[in-house]
């Protein structure tokens, strides 16, 4: 081969290699980063979350203006088993840029392992404090670092009812637990079934029951004990916890009180469990569920008018001093990869504009107090939003705050208890043993 040709080829090869190396080098990435911090104009942000169906449509609708404006593609991946999927991805060193976190307990684990980005470097904290009350920001803070923000929230423990059925039976809305009990007994005496409960939820079956117990516990023993309970400082075999289980047991283990008996309770998906209230001849009168059940009801019964054909009242107070307590839950979002695209998107997620998509699209509530009530689609979600704003005591879903194993065993304990209530003693003993190991 001619000498010059050989030199040319050598240079060409070296050039190609250099280009590749440059494309892979951190030097190159840093440059994009610095430029992108101001205004990323391309690229992708990957999002892992639990939203499906209608919620996913709303999410996409919400993401579209962002995609158009910034030119960043939002690549969404959905799962129902967020805990396992996210843990695997993080362990494998391949986390999504942004993900819904399985709960505050898990969030703390990720944060302490250094997997989550400190969001105070991302947000303008002045504005965040203006948008979110301290309580919400605290729930996303671990060891003084903000690592999670709420994409949307819900009130738990609302009692849903069918106003027409209530009128037909001549029932007033009960104002406290005693009235609730009296109304239920009256319905039973007339041969009606007061409650409809469904616990099935795939890999998370039983969580509806934990909501029941949490709402009862909060109103029986107050926020202080509630905190001790989820922090693992209160024994499951304590009289407080036992009292709560037995209070719920009056309803759920009594075949006269609950539609379809235990087989229905155990096997019915939570999303279907409100249906008996709205059949042509109602088969049940009350259904305890979070504010998000509204979108399920609307999907199954598109003709029902919120406020007229279905409505809710707050969980009946038990101890008067805890009357104004509310349990809330929500989708905490965290950031695992510090890319300009992820920064831009998580900033967008928390703005009132993005949040109003959730509220008007799904009836979900926003933790951002600058989302105007105008953006709540109907009287019901406006009422729920108001309850949230007015509550003196707001606590987060206790089971979500417990360690993974405690939460999981709590769920399956709910199923075992409904299946065989006489085993309550041994169920509580097992939970107590889990508590000793899990914290």
């Amino acid at each position, binding site marked *: 081969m001619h000498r010059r040709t050989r030199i040319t080829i050598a240079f060409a090869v070296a050039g190609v290699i250099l280009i590749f190396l440059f*494309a892979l080098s951190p030097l190159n990435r840093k440059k994009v980063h610095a430029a992108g911090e101001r205004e990323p104009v391309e690229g992708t942000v990957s999002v892992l979350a639990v939203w499906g169906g209608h919620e996913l449509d709303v999410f996409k609708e919400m993401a579209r203006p962002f995609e158009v404006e910034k030119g960043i593609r939002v690549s969404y991946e959905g799962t129902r088993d967020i805990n396992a999927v996210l843990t695997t991805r993080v362990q494998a060193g391949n986390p999504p840029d942004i993900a819904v976190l399985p709960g505050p307990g898990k969030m703390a684990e990720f944060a302490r392992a250094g997997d989550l980005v400190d969001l105070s470097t991302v947000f303008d904290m002045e504005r965040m404090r203006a948008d979110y009350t301290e309580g919400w920001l605290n729930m996303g803070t671990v060891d003084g670092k903000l690592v999670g923000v709420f994409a949307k929230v819900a009130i738990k423990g609302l009692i849903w009812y069918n106003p027409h059925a209530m009128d037909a039976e001549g029932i007033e809305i009960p104002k406290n637990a005693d009235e609730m009990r009296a109304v239920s007994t009256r319905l039973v005496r007339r041969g009606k079934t007061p409650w409809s409960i469904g616990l099935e939820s*795939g890999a998370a079956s*039983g969580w509806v029951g934990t909501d029941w117990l949490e709402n009862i516990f909060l109103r029986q023993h107050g926020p202080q004990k509630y905190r001790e309970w989820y922090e693992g400082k209160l024994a499951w075999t304590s009289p407080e916890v036992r009292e709560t289980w037995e209070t719920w047991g009056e309803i759920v283990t009594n075949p006269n009180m609950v539609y379809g*008996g235990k*087989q229905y309770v155990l*096997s019915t998906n939570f999303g279907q469990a409100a249906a008996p209230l709205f059949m042509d001849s109602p088969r049940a009168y009350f259904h305890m569920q979070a504010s998000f059940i509204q979108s399920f009801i609307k999907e199954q019964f598109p003709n029902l008018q919120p406020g007229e054909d279905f409505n809710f009242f707050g969980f009946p107070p038990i101890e008067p001093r805890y009357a104004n307590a509310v349990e809330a839950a929500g989708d905490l979002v965290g950031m695992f990869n510090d890319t300009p695209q992820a920064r831009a998107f998580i900033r967008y997620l928390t703005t009132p504009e993005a949040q109003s998509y959730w509220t008007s699209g799904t009836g979900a509530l926003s933790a951002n107090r600058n989302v105007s009530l105008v953006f709540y689609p109907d009287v019901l979600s406006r009422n729920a939003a108001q309850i949230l704003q007015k509550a003196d005591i707001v606590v987060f879903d206790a089971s979500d705050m417990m360690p993974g194993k405690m939460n999981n065993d709590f769920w399956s304990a709910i199923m075992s208890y409904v299946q*065989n209530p006489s085993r309550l003693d041994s169920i509580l003993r097992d939970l107590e043993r889990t508590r000793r190991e899990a914290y």
Partner: protein
Amino acid sequence: MILRSTILAVAAVFGVPAGLTLYIFLVEKGVARLRFPVQKRIRPWLWVAPGLAILSVFLLYPVINTLVLSFLNSDSTRFIGPQNYLRIFTDRDMLIVLRNNALWLVFFTLVTVTVGLLIAVLTDKVRYEQAAKALIFLPMAISFVAAGVIWKFMYEFKPKGVPQIGTLNAVLTTLFPSFEPQAWLFNPGINNWALIVVGIWIWTGFAMVILSASIKGVPKEIVEAARMDGAGEFQVFFRITLPIIKPTIMVVTTTLIINVLKIFDIVYVMTNGILDTEVIANRMYKEMFNFMNFGMASALAVLLLVAIVPVMLMNIKRFGQRGEEQ
């Protein structure tokens, strides 16, 4: 991102074969310089070396690592001896897990092989054999997860007096009006059986196809000779067909055992182990990904391995024998 993964993919697809070819080329060049007897001894080892290396990295190392982890605590920071194993054999929940795997092992394997064999023998004698076999084999084409979802619909429960939308309850309440609808997956007396049925539904086709092929291989002359001597259908089956296809039955059985010990998808999708339906693999998954207890998850993995290895060795030995026979 996309550019980088594309480069990586191209590099892997072309780079690995190219690298291996280069390795062999160099090995041959090097070996050629040695004396012949040394060449003969050393060459096979050099040829299998890349394979052994890959096997060690992707199989041997994980196995050893899992074994080590199983003696450590949940976040693998402290040695705790055989505690994880002790818990597996003493904890009430864990004993239920073991019991369920035993149930699966015995009844799933027994019923699948028996029914598969029965169908193979019966379809052998009819004209619409192909269609019948295709129908039975069809579930094999469905993923376990999809099968789980389908059967969840089949087992759906509605209270008495409401139209039953689950196939099983609908059929039973129609045939026997006094029948009380059952929540099949939520009744501790039935739920394990309801799950095992799904497994049988999927795997019977597999057993049938292999056994059927083996039955076709039974020499016609022997069967005809037996008939000439006055043997009935049952005698032909038990004295001729069965002994001849016995090795195949063993292979099918061991394959099924290996699969059933690892059963996961059906349980995960349909009950996720609630109300005493947990099995080892599902529990392992939970310990690992939900509870972050790496020690216990590893101990369960080792337990599965220990249970499966003897069956696998038996299977390999069978295959080896058949190789020699031919």
